[in-house]
């Protein structure tokens, strides 16, 4: 809901949007189809990446699945060659962010990383927010209280 609201008025002729979802996510695509059928028209814009880790998965196999997720993201990022990566928060975004950072290094490309914190975060950042904060080119929060605590954070008013 939060991510889709940000795309509400974005002109699809000017901006090409590709969506990345976790393999086990069955509801996000349906949500896009229900609320933004115009965006969901072209299914080739929707890309699935493997989940890094399932709840309760052992450490040793997690290492392998995380590596697989990361490699899948690297391939996807290479193919899409994005200018901007917009991420929201849940752990799904970590391999994508890591892939984009590596991609910037090895392809000598600048990708703008925009992190949008969850609206539930009023006084402190989420785990994803804290981890991605040093790397983000823009870090958006939904409560002015956070701007006081985090110098890089921007509060752009009510966005949805």
């Amino acid at each position, binding site marked *: 809901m*939060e991510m889709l609201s940000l795309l509400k008025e*974005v002109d699809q002729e*000017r901006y090409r949007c590709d969506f990345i979802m976790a393999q086990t996510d069955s509801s996000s695509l349906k949500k896009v189809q229900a609320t933004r059928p115009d965006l969901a028209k072209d299914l080739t814009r929707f890309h699935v990446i493997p989940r890094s880790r399932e709840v309760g998965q052992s450490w040793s196999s997690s290492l392998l699945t995380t590596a697989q997720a990361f490699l899948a993201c690297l391939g996807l990022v290479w193919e899409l060659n994005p200018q*901007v990566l917009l991420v929201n928060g849940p752990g799904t975004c970590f391999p994508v962010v890591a892939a984009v950072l590596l991609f910037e290094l090895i392809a000598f490309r600048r990708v*703008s990383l925009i992190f949008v914190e969850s*609206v539930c975060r009023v006084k402190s950042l989420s785990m994803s927010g804290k981890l991605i904060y040093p790397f983000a*080119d823009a870090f*958006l929060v939904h409560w002015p209280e956070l701007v006081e605590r985090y110098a890089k954070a921007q509060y752009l008013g009510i*966005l949805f």
Partner: protein
Amino acid sequence: MIFVTVGTTSFDDLIKEVDSESFQKQAKELGYTRLVVQYGRGSHRMCDREPPILEVESFDLKPSLEDEMSSASLVVSHAGAGSIIEALRQNRRLLVVVNPSLMDNHQLELAEAMYRRGFCAMAAEPHQLPAALAEAAKMQMQPYPPADLRPWHKLLEETCGVAPTG
């Protein structure tokens, strides 16, 4: 009509509270006659009172709660961001109930922030619902400001070099 929603979560303590005689009697005294309860993934079911105090309807999940939201004179919602914002966008009188048994309670932060700004009434846990109900029925609610995406579009334009809208 009072519409109670817990989204896709399970929040039996809230459902039990709105199922109680004391809650329903108080709601009736405040002028409410109907209660619609969306109980999500919870297992508690509303009981059939004879005689009924309020007219009660309930269901678990629906793809969209727009109909219930738009016809409610009071929405009692769990503290999930989606439910809160949906109720506020429909300009509903809102009472947010926090689930204290959730770990890492960001719900409490969000509910408090919304409450402090006057957008809704708040109960920090289901047992505080009756007291909060009286407040919710009477309080002057601040209207939730409309979304303005222009600062966001400006950021996109600065980042990409192209304006996102025509």
